C-alpha cells in the first residue's frame, strides 16, 4: 500500500477543523434558527468523508494478515528516535471505525448545542473534528513517541469543548479533567523516557518504533520493566477511568454537552483500555502478568463501585458516567484475564460500549435540552408525551445493561466467560455488576419515563427528523451487531491472539468458547456465532 491512507484519515478531519476556523463566524449570539447552518454542514461533510474513507479501509483490511496493515513509517526526530509511523491491526481498526462512526452522529445530534456556548458555533465543530483526527491518529500510531504526542494533544480539544460549551461549572470540570489527564500523561512521560533510555542502550540506538521496541523490552531488567509498566498503566487507568482515579469523569460528563460527552466517554476513554492492550501488554508482558492480580481486583471494584454509585445519582449524565466506570471495569477485567475470550470480548466491548453509551448520552441529551434540567426527579411520564424518545431511551438503556440480542451483551458475555475461565470468583462479582446495571437503568427509566405526566413535561416535543436521523444508525448497529458480531470478531481475534502470544499465553482460543456453553442461559445463538 503506497498511498498514505491512514495519514489521509487523520488529516481529513483536521483539515475540516481548519476550514471551520477560517469560515466567517456565523452569528450565534442571535437566538432563533435564522443563523445559517454552514458550520454544521461543513463538519458533517468532513466527518462523513472520513467515515467513508475508514469504511473503505475496513473493507480492504485483511483479517488474516500478520502484524500491522496500511503501514507508513518515516523518521521524524532522529535524535529522539521518534518516527511518524502509522498502522492498523484488528484492535486499532475497530476503534478507528468507532471514532469515524460516532463523529458524524455527534455532529448531527449537536446541531444546535453550540448556540448556547460562549463561543462561536464554528469553534465547537472545529474542535470536534480536530478531536476526531487526533483520536484516529492515536489508534493508528505504531510509534510510542507519536502515540504519546497525540495522546496528550487530544486533551486540548476536549478541554475547550467542555470549558467553552458546557454547563454552569464547566470551567471547574474542564480544569479538573485536564489536570487529572496531565498528571497521568506526565507520569507516562517518565516511562516514555525510560523506554528511550533502554532502547538507547541496545545495539540499534534509540528508537520508539513499536516493532523495534518489543524485542528490546523483552530483554529488559524485570524491575525496570515493572516501573515502566506502572507509568503507562497509571496514565491509562486515569484515562479509562478506573476506580480510584475516576472522579474527573462524572464532573466532566455532568457539565459537557451531550456531544462532547460522547466523544469523551465513547472515543477518548477507549484510548486508556486500548493503550493497556497495545502498550502495557505489548511492551511489558512480564510486568503485566505480575500486576494482574491487583489490576483484576481494581477492575472488579470499578464494576461494583461504578454500578452502586450510579444507583444513587440524581443527575442523568452523572449516572451515565458512573455506569461507564462500571463498564470500563468490565473491559479492563477482560483484558487482564489474559485469555482470548476475555480480550476479544473487551475489544468488542470497547466498540459496543461506544455505541450504547453514545446513544444513551445523546438521547438523554435531547431529553435534558427539552426540559432544561438534568435532574431525574424533574421528569416523569415522558413516554406518554414523547413515545419515540422514550422508546429510544429504552433501547439505549437496555443495551447498556446488556440485554441479550443487543450488541453489548455479546461482548459482556465473552468477558464473563473469560473471567470464569480465569477464576470463577471474578465472574461471580462481575455478575453482580450486571444485576446492578439492570437496577440503575430500569430505575432511571421508571422515574423519568413512566408514571403521571409532570406539568413541566406536558407539551414536550418528540424527536425531530434530524434527531431521529442521528439515532437511527446507532440503534441499527446495536441491534445488528447484537445478532451478527462476526465481522468485528473476525478482525479482532487475530490481533488478540498476537497480543496473547506475546504475553506467553497462547491458548487455543476460539474453541474454548464452545466448551463453555453451559454458562449460557438463554438461547444465545450470537455467542455461538462468535466462534
Amino acid at each position, binding site marked *: 500500500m503506497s498511498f498514505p491512507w491512514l495519514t489521509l484519515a487523520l488529516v481529513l478531519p483536521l483539515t475540516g477543523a481548519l476550514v471551520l476556523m477560517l469560515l466567517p463566524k456565523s452569528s450565534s449570539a442571535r437566538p432563533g434558527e435564522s443563523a445559517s447552518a454552514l458550520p454544521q454542514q461543513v463538519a458533517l461533510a468532513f466527518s462523513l468523508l472520513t467515515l467513508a474513507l475508514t469504511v473503505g479501509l475496513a473493507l480492504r483490511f485483511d483479517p488474516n494478515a500478520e502484524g500491522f496493515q496500511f503501514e507508513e513509517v518515516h523518521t*521524524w*526526530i*532522529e*535524535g*529522539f*528516535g521518534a518516527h511518524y509511523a502509522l498502522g492498523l491491526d484488528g484492535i486499532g481498526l475497530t476503534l478507528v471505525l468507532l471514532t469515524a462512526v460516532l463523529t458524524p452522529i455527534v455532529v448531527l445530534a449537536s446541531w444546535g448545542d453550540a448556540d448556547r456556548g*460562549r463561543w462561536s458555533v464554528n469553534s465547537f465543530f472545529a474542535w470536534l473534528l480536530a478531536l476526531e483526527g487526533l483520536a484516529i491518529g492515536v489508534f493508528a500510531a505504531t510509534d510510542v513517541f507519536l502515540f*504519546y*504526542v*497525540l495522546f*496528550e*494533544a487530544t*486533551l*486540548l480539544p476536549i478541554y*475547550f469543548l467542555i*470549558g*467553552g460549551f458546557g454547563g454552569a461549572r*464547566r*470551567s471547574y470540570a*474542564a*480544569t479538573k479533567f*485536564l*489536570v487529572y489527564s*496531565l*498528571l497521568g500523561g*506526565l*507520569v507516562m*512521560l*517518565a516511562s516514555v*523516557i*525510560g523506554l*528511550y*533510555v533502554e532502547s*538507547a*542502550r541496545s*545495539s*540499534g*540506538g*534509540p528508537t520508539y518504533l513499536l516493532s523495534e521496541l518489543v524485542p528490546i523490552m523483552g530483554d529488559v531488567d524485570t524491575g525496570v520493566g515493572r516501573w515502566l509498566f506502572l507509568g503507562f498503566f497509571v496514565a491509562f487507568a486515569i484515562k479509562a477511568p478506573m476506580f480510584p482515579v475516576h472522579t474527573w469523569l462524572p464532573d466532566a460528563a455532568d457539565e459537557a454537552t451531550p456531544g462532547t460527552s460522547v466523544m469523551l466517554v465513547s472515543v477518548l476513554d477507549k484510548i486508556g483500555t486500548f493503550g493497556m492492550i497495545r502498550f502495557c501488554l505489548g511492551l511489558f508482558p512480564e510486568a503485566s502478568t505480575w500486576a494482574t492480580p491487583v489490576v483484576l481486583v481494581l477492575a472488579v471494584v470499578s464494576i461494583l463501585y461504578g454500578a452502586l454509585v450510579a444507583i444513587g445519582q440524581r443527575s442523568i449524565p452523572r449516572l451515565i458516567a458512573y455506569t461507564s466506570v462500571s463498564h470500563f471495569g468490565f473491559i479492563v477485567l477482560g483484558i487482564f484475564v489474559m485469555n482470548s475470550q476475555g480480550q476479544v470480548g473487551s475489544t468488542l466491548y470497547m466498540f459496543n460500549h461506544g455505541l450504547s453509551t453514545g446513544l444513551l448520552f445523546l438521547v438523554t441529551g435531547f431529553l435534558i435540552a427539552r426540559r432544561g434540567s438534568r435532574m431525574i426527579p424533574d421528569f416523569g411520564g415522558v413516554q406518554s408525551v414523547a413515545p419515540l424518545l422514550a422508546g429510544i431511551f429504552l433501547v439505549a438503556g437496555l443495551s447498556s445493561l446488556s440485554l441479550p440480542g443487543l450488541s453489548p451483551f455479546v461482548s459482556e458475555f465473552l468477558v464473563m466467560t473469560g473471567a470464569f475461565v480465569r477464576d470463577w470468583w471474578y465472574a461471580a462479582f462481575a455478575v453482580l455488576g450486571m444485576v446492578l446495571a439492570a437496577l440503575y437503568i430500569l430505575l432511571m427509566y421508571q422515574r423519568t419515563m413512566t408514571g403521571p405526566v409532570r406539568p413541566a413535561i406536558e407539551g414536550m416535543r418528540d424527536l425531530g427528523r434530524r434527531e431521529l436521523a442521528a439515532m437511527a444508525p446507532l440503534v441499527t448497529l446495536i441491534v445488528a451487531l447484537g445478532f451478527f458480531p462476526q465481522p468485528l470478531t473476525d478482525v479482532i481475534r487475530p490481533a488478540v491472539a498476537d497480543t496473547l502470544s506475546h504475553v506467553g499465553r497462547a491458548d487455543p482460543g476460539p474453541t474454548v468458547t464452545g466448551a463453555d456453553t453451559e454458562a449460557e442461559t438463554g438461547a444465545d445463538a450470537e455467542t455461538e456465532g462468535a466462534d
Partner: protein
Amino acid sequence: MTVEAPHIEYGTLSPLLLILGVAIVGVMVEAFLPRRLRYLVQTLLAIAGTLGAFAATIYVGTRLADRADGRARGSIVAEGAIAVDGPTIFLWGVLLLLSFVSVLLFAERHLDGGVTAFAGQAAALPGTEAEREASTRGLEHTEVFPLMMFAVAGMMLFPASNDLLTMFVALEVLSLPLYLLCGLARRRRLLSQEAALKYFMLGAFSSGFFLYGIALVYGYAGGTSFAAVAEAVAGRIGSQGLLLGGVALMSVGLLFKVSAAPFHAWTPDVYQGAPTAVTGFMAVCTKVAAFGALLRLFYVAFGGAQRDWTPMIWIVAIVTMAVGSIFALTQSDIKRMLAYSSIAHAGFLLVGFVGLYQATGAAGSEITSLQSVLFYLVTYGFMTIGAFGIVTLVRDAGGEANHLSRWAGLGKESPLVAGVFAFFLLSMAGIPLTSGFTGKWAVFTSAAQGGAWPLVVVGVILSVVAAYFYLRVIVLMYFAEPAGEGPTVAVPSVLTVAVIAVGLAATVVLGVLPGPVLDLAAQAGAFVR
C-alpha cells in the same frame, strides 16, 4: 626588559568585538547626534550590530578546528582567557538572535503614544515638574540601546570565558547595564526604580560571593585559568575545604543569575518592576548566558569534583522547581507569574545540567546533557520572549494591565492575542507539539540517561503543578467573564508583531520538527579544555 603584547585572535573574536564596537558607537551617537535622529540611528545600529555579529558567529562557527579526536571543536584564544568552541558558538548564535528580537521590543513606539516604554528623563524624580516636562516634550532615553549592547557583550563573554577572572569581568559587564535598564520604565516609575535598586543590591552581593569563591579556588589551584583549576581538581592537591568553599560560593553567584532557588528572591520583584521589554530581554538572554557559564565552569573547571557538587545541584534543582511551580500558583500579576515560571524553568534546566550524561554508546546518537540544556535554552528563549511581547499589548489607561484579573475574558475581546498567548502558556506547560514539550523531553531524557531518575520523577510531578498555573491563565482568558471594563489590546507596530511572530514560529517549529536545532546542539560537541 621587553613587554610582549598579548596575542589576540581578532577574527575569532569578531562577533564579540563587533557588539562592543556597536555599543561604543552608540555612546558616541548619544553625544554627537541631535535628539531627533538618535532613536532611528540607535535602533538601526543595534539591529545591524546583532545581525552582523550573528553572521560573524556563523562564519567563525564554520571554521572551528577539531580537537580531542573530533569530540570537541574550537580553540582557546586571547592568551587562554576565552574559549571559542562549539557550545560558545551555539550560545552566541542564540544570544544574538534573541537580542535582535529584544531590540525590536525595545524599539516599539506605537503602544505608548509615539514614545518608547522607557522614561523620558530618568534623572527627573517621579511626580515632579521636571518629569512632567520631560514627558510633555516627548523625551525618551535612547541610551537604552548602547546599554543593552554592553549587556549583550557581557553575556557573550560570560559563557565563553575560560578563566575565572574573565568570567567575573563578564558577569559585571552584563549585570551593570541591566541594573540601569530595570530602572528606566516610563510608567510606574517608583516600582521600576525599586526593582533596579533591589536587583543592584542583591546582584552586588552575589557578585561578592562569586569573587570570594574565585579567591578560594585560586588559593586551592594556584591559578585562575580553567585548565589550571581542572588540573588541580583532578590531582586532588591542596586543601579540599578551599575547593568546596570556592565551588559553593561561586555557584551562589551563578545560581543567582539563573534565578535558581534559594537565590531567586529578586526575580519576581525585578521582573514585575522593570519595563516589560527589559524583563523579556533579561529573562531570556541572562538565563542563556548564565547557564552557558554554569555549564562551562562546572563541566570544565570543576568536572573532576563531580561527586562533591552534584548533591548540592540536585537539591537546588528540586527546590527551584518546587518554588517556581508552587509559588506561581498564588500570583496575581502576570509578570510575577512569568517570573516564577522562569524560576521553574531554571529548575528543569538544572535537571538536564546535573544529569552529566555524555554519549558513550557506539551509536553516538543519544542525547547528551550539554545538548539537551542548549536545546532547552533555545525553546525557552523564544517562547518566553514571545510571551513578554504579548504582555506589552494588553493595556488599560495606566499602561500595561498586568494584574491577572484584567486579563479575564481576553479570549472574547481579542481571540488572536489570547490564542497566541494560550499557545505560549501551553508550550511552557510542556504540552506536546510545542517546543516546551520537546525541550522538557530532552532535559528529562538526558537526566534519566545519567541515572538521575529521582530528579526526573520530581520534575514530572512538579510539571503538573506548573501546568496548573498556566492553565489558570487560560481559564481566565477564555472561561471567565471580563471584570468591569475588560482589557483592551493595543495595536502594536510591526516591531512587536515581528517579535511575537518569531516566538510563535520558533515554538511551533521546534515543537513539531526539532531535529535540525537538536542536531546543531549535538554538533556543538563538548567544551574545549
